[in-house]
């Protein structure tokens, strides 16, 4: 479980997060939504310990402030907005996820974990390719493979479906959903596309100007809320059982 109590953060004196209180249950897919500059990415970086906010954050009952970086890395895996493809091989890159667990030497167990993760994502054929040689969809899978090799129970994803085509977007979110259902992983995902969020998330956190406007399950997603958050009039229709937000 992730608990945030009165989390506040300022960039150069400008408050970007104000009085954030959240509780996230284990094994849920949680979408963080809101317009640009709402503080979504900042919130994610605070939960990850990349930024040091005021207030307190607990991951599985442990206070984030008191955790050493490598201990925190065993609990939380993070996928930033941009991953720069290097000449590193896919296997080596995924092996990076084992960094919090291993020393200089790579153990047999670490390699086995990498192999299993690549198998699970169906990308074992990419193992010895270089990151630069991958397509956008493949790269995103490799990036999440690295996060999975970390064996953390919490996965923080910052706009993971940006730059992906429609098929890859859906595949990727299916994967996130599957991980939460089968492995009990908690996924906190910053998403721009409300409809993608509606399809895959269990819970929603709507943010604006550094504050939480609304949080809860599907029932909170109403045309009024979306209109208020994004400042555009919308309607919500159910198409084949899936709610779809349509700007009017």
């Amino acid at each position, binding site marked *: 479980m992730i608990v945030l109590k009165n989390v506040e953060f300022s960039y150069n004196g400008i408050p970007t997060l104000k009085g954030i209180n959240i509780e996230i249950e284990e094994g849920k897919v949680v979408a963080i939504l809101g317009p640009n500059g709402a503080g979504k990415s900042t919130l994610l*970086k605070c939960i*990850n*310990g*990349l930024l040091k906010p005021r207030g307190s954050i607990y991951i599985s009952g442990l206070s984030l402030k008191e955790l*050493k*970086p*490598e*201990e*925190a*890395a065993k609990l*939380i*895996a*993070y996928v*930033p907005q*941009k*991953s*720069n493809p*290097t*000449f*590193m*091989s896919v*296997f*080596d*890159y995924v092996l*990076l*996820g084992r*960094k*919090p667990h*291993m020393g*200089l030497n790579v153990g047999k167990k670490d*390699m*086995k974990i990498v*192999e299993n993760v*690549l198998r699970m994502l169906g990308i*074992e054929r990419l*193992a*010895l390719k*270089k990151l*630069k*040689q991958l397509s956008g969809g493949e790269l995103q899978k490799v990036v999440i493979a*690295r996060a999975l090799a*970390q064996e953390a129970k919490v996965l923080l994803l910052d706009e993971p479906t940006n730059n992906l085509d429609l098929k890859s977007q859906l595949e990727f979110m299916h994967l996130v959903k599957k991980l939460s259902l089968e492995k009990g992983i908690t996924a906190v995902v910053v998403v721009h596309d409300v409809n993608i969020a509606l399809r895959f998330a269990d819970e929603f956190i709507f943010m604006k100007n550094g504050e939480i406007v609304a949080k809860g399950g599907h029932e909170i997603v109403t045309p009024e809320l979306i209109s208020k958050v994004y400042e555009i009039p919308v309607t919500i229709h159910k198409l084949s059982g899936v709610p779809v937000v349509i700007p009017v």
Partner: protein
Amino acid sequence: MIDAYRKHIKRKILFNFTLILSLLVSVIVALRFGSYDMSFLDVFRALSGGGGASGMVIWNMRLPRVLAALLVGGGLALAGAAMQTLLRNPLASPFTMGVSHGAMFGASLAIFILGSGGAESTGRILLNNPYSTALFAFLGSLLGVFVVLTLASLRGLSPEAMILAGVAMSAMFTAGTTLLQYFADEIQLASMVYWSFGDLGRASWREIGVIGITLGTALMYFILRSWDLNAIESGDDIASSLGVNVERVRIVGTLLASLITAVSVAFVGIIGFIGLICPHMVRLLIGSDHRFLLPSSVLLGALLLLVSDTFSRTILSPTILPVGIITSFMGAPLFVYLLVRMEVSR
């Protein structure tokens, strides 16, 4: 898959063995050739303690020079590889923090105020006070590094800002050097220019010891941190989220890389190209996993500088060409060849 990965790792280890083997051969060849003629047998005899005159030549002249080439070449390549990763810039080199310009300024200052340069009656330029020149060069080279790193740690400069600050420091040192040169007499001026041509013959056993200890310390640090460097190459946020203290590794790493460079430059002058290009050659050949990139860069840098130095001593013998000329003449075409071949096969 694990087997395929192991094979992939073995290839990199094999590459290192090839480099070590080539190094051994090059060392023997370098010891054998020079203006004093001797046979391979003489070389072995001298190394095992005998050999009379050839023993003197080997122990007092050629061996120190060969070791200097190995340590300086390896050190510059290591510094370059580390800087390129730490500063996330393929154009970063051992000199990015202003080390070479600072050293040039320091050496020029020593020649100007301490009169540590001079000319023989034959017109040959001498550095008649090499220790003070080396000391000033060393202090000058670290001055810029300290300014940039202090700013980086106090103000949390980004790698891009660190590089730009390094460029600014270099510009200031260049201006200082030009000012000194403007007021220098012709012998001082000639000494300054002569100093700036790297010369491996300047290092004696004591200097080799200093360079060796610095290189050993830095190499150990970087090898122990090779997974951290792999993480940093993937991005600062990813590295931090994996538990790496990015800022500390960046500052300590830059300091160590600059330190190896400063020691080398102070004792043997400025040798360009190796530090910038060797790491890229290795990346093209075996990829950028730092567990192998770093040792391979050291070996390749050592090999390249030793071969260049042997050429520079022998092609116009008894005249010894500045080794920097040869490294660039030999290295640049080799690098372009690799670049084109590897980019195409990519």
